[in-house]
């Protein structure tokens, strides 16, 4: 089963995304901050990570940058989920190596499609 790690400090979003991805057949691990996401990804690398950008302590951007800089996690597919929708924000997200960028408010169905597309691309 494809394992997905979700990091979001908003419990509603975390539960919603977990629910939707579990319904779609993924095995989901959810954490509420960037440091926990980094630790979890390093300890047991998932098949994909969905990261909120604005988290207290360590942002999704920071986590993405750290993961990309570390060979064991450098190629992990990463989707950023964020309310920051300006062109510059998106540019920063892709600049640190994110594979896709989903802006809040988001469509849960579309998020699943994006997750599946990125995973398919990585496996192609």
């Amino acid at each position, binding site marked *: 089963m494809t394992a997905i790690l979700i990091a979001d400090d*908003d419990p*509603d*979003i975390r*539960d*919603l995304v977990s*629910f*939707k991805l579990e*319904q779609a057949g993924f095995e989901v691990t959810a954490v509420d901050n960037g440091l926990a996401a980094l630790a979890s990804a390093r300890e047991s690398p998932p098949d994909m990570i969905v990261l909120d950008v604005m988290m207290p302590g360590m942002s999704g951007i920071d986590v993405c940058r750290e993961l990309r800089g570390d060979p064991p996690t450098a190629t992990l597919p990463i989707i950023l989920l964020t309310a*920051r929708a*300006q062109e510059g924000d998106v540019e920063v997200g892709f*600049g640190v190596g994110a594979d896709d960028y989903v802006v*809040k*408010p*988001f*469509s*849960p*169905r*579309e998020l699943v499609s994006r997750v599946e597309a990125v995973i398919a691309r990585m496996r192609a």
Partner: protein
Amino acid sequence: MTVAQIATFALSVLISAAFVLGMVIVVGRALRHARNAARARLAAPGRRALLALAAGDDAPDNLDALVQLDPAVWRAVEPTAVALLGKVRGEAHAALVLAFEQRGMGDRALPELRARGAIRRARAAEVLGNLGRADAVPGLVYLLHDTDRDVRTVAARALGRIGDPAATRALLESLAGRHPVPPQTVADAVMRMGADAQPALAAALDHSADLVRATAVEVLGLIGAITVAPRVITALSDDQSPEVRQRAAAALGRLGTRSALAPLLEAVEPGRPPALRATAARALGDLGAVATAPALGALLSDPEHTVAHAAAYSLLRLGNAGRQVLEHAAGPGPAAGPDPTHTAGSAGDRAAGYAREALARFDLDDQRRTGEVGATVAPPPSPVTDGSGPVIGSAPTAVGGR
């Protein structure tokens, strides 16, 4: 009573007070924790149906379950439901709206816009905005002048979510007056109105308040209102406010019309305010017209740091034509050339410094993009040596910043 007795008494009073205060805090936290836990237990069944509905689960049971929830359970789950409305879109949002409407929340919220308490007014505005209730627009427009700042902000946000262009003028006018709405909130709301908001935005360029004109011109640029470009050009050349002219320059860069070229080139000429010249130089980069390469190249030796710096980075955005100008200005010198902020150097030295900095930054970004960057890559020389200003000049960003 001796001094020692007084001191002992005061100390015991202090210790007792600290003990009582500590107990109040501990008991208060315990009560709050217990209350939250009880609410979570109460909300659990409804929360499950709510998440399923918001996740787009097609089972009709979820909607029925939410609509038929016991009022006490709904009250416990309602804060999550309201929050989710603003966090999802598409089918998930539509399904939640249906659940809210079937529970009668929209109809109950309408009269609440006139409630005595600010929290009730703000909550009603939030709900009506999330539900997209067009019949709430007049009430929300009224709240734009509420005495409570949070209510005004929530009302503006709600109007943006409803997206009725008829509210554009009221939103822009809410920037002025005794109880203004934050510019960022107004700009975000108006940007959601779509193309039908353009006439009101263009009309706002004649408003007496600088902030209204500045916000209107910036939003026109952000929404790509190319049909209003002539009016933005007039704002760039004629507006009395330097801030409005600066934002007009940035807007013209975003609009990207051919007609913007001449006024922007005029705006970078010496004699204009440096902030305007820098913004216009950056806008020329946004415009991306290779014909501007010679003019931008001439600005590399400008004595104003922000102008020369903006020109160098705009040249990078012009592709090969801009790069050739930069390489010519950089000359054959070392990678780490003269510090361009040293105005004592010749014009050629200053131009070379800015050109080399931009080229080095481009190479570094290119290496980052291709994954070839390593620990041995040195950062490019920074033109800012005294910490007196931002590296990327002072372009006006989205109104009010983020």
